[in-house]
């Protein structure tokens, strides 16, 4: 399937919770090596969109393709078996807002758990790779610590390394810095920026406008469940096309000026 330089293709995805339409007809594509930042006010459906991509949330309508392969629905047009869905999910790494590390495992075990248990890769190989990833996020000395003993920033760096240990085609970030103290945000953004530079394909839901502006290859602006605007970050931040995006950015600029960020 060489024609798919698109790693992710989201086509017309809709989702409602009861009477509330959380996503309506959202479409976007992510090319290999791209860093797409999803921005938008709270409640605009950003996290739901991310969770629909790996089917943690089942979309009501629309299609999602990972490297040309349909996620969640099999060739016969029916919902995939859990096994097939698991297989696809192993190719999509996810980083959670509240880290979601496994509390009963050490840092190194957290990294090795899914590759060994789910992907069934040889333990020695996984271990070497996990140690290299820990070195990369600057946490080699914490390999035998339990998550409860780490700071928020360290936990999130472990979370990123854990997702990378799966060798995913695509990495999803669900507000990775929102639960962190302001002084710890930087260390996580550094890791993410490095990944972007290395050409990891990523979709990042974030409120870090500075990061989006500088590290994103493209920005997707959601408002009330609709993909209102998409484009290069320079253009989006300097000269947004829609009134909604302009208001949104103004509010953020105001917050920054008032020192509230």
């Amino acid at each position: 399937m060489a024609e798919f330089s698109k790693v992710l293709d989201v086509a017309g995805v809709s989702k409602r919770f009861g009477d509330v339409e959380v996503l309506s007809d959202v479409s976007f594509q992510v090319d290999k090596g791209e860093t797409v930042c999803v921005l938008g006010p709270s409640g605009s459906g950003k996290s739901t969109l991310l969770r629909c991509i790996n089917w943690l949330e089942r979309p009501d309508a629309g299609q999602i393709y990972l490297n040309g392969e349909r996620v969640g629905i099999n060739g016969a047009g029916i919902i995939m078996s859990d096994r097939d869905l698991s297989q696809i999910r192993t190719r999509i790494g996810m980083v959670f807002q509240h880290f979601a590390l496994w509390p009963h495992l050490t840092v190194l075990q957290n990294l090795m758990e899914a590759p060994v248990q789910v992907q069934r890769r040889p333990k020695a190989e996984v271990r070497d790779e996990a140690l290299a990833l820990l070195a990369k996020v600057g946490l080699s000395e914490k390999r035998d610590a339990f998550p409860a003993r780490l700071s928020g920033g360290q936990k999130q760096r472990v979370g990123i390394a854990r997702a990378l240990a799966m060798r995913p085609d695509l990495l999803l970030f669900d507000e990775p810095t929102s639960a962190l103290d302001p002084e710890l945000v930087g260390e996580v953004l550094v890791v993410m920026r490095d990944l972007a530079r290395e050409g990891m394909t990523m979709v990042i839901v974030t409120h870090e406008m500075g990061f989006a502006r500088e590290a994103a290859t493209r920005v997707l602006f959601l408002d009330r469940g609709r993909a209102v605007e998409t484009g290069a970050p320079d253009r989006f931040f300097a000269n947004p096309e829609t009134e909604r995006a302009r208001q949104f950015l103004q509010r953020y600029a105001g917050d920054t000026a008032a020192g509230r960020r």
Partner: protein
Amino acid sequence: MSVYTPVSEVQLSDWLRNYSVGRLAGFEPIEAGIAFGFSEIRLFRRIILPPLLLSAGPVIGNQMIQIIKDSAFLTIIALPELTHAASSIQSRHYVPFAAFITAVFLYWGLCLVIEAGVSSIGRVAEARR
């Protein structure tokens, strides 16, 4: 044992249910397990059960000690256990005290073993808290 422990079993399952509901509802690590491709069985075995057992350890230990105590204090004993053995020794040899004191110490020893088990689970859990 079932004669003496219906209450304990109900309590135990109740405790476990409370633990699982209270501790695991919206437990992000489980969601992470799903997102990382764990099958349902493996998710339960590798991700859900270990923390659950660690946090329920003291409850299970207390229940076990309670069960042992209950069975010790009840006079109608259907199973050939310690008090029964002690009373038969007593009736044969006419040394009531020695036999029952031995039984008491054996019970105590049993409880100590369980306590030691519980506290070692507790230490493992503490390191992860």
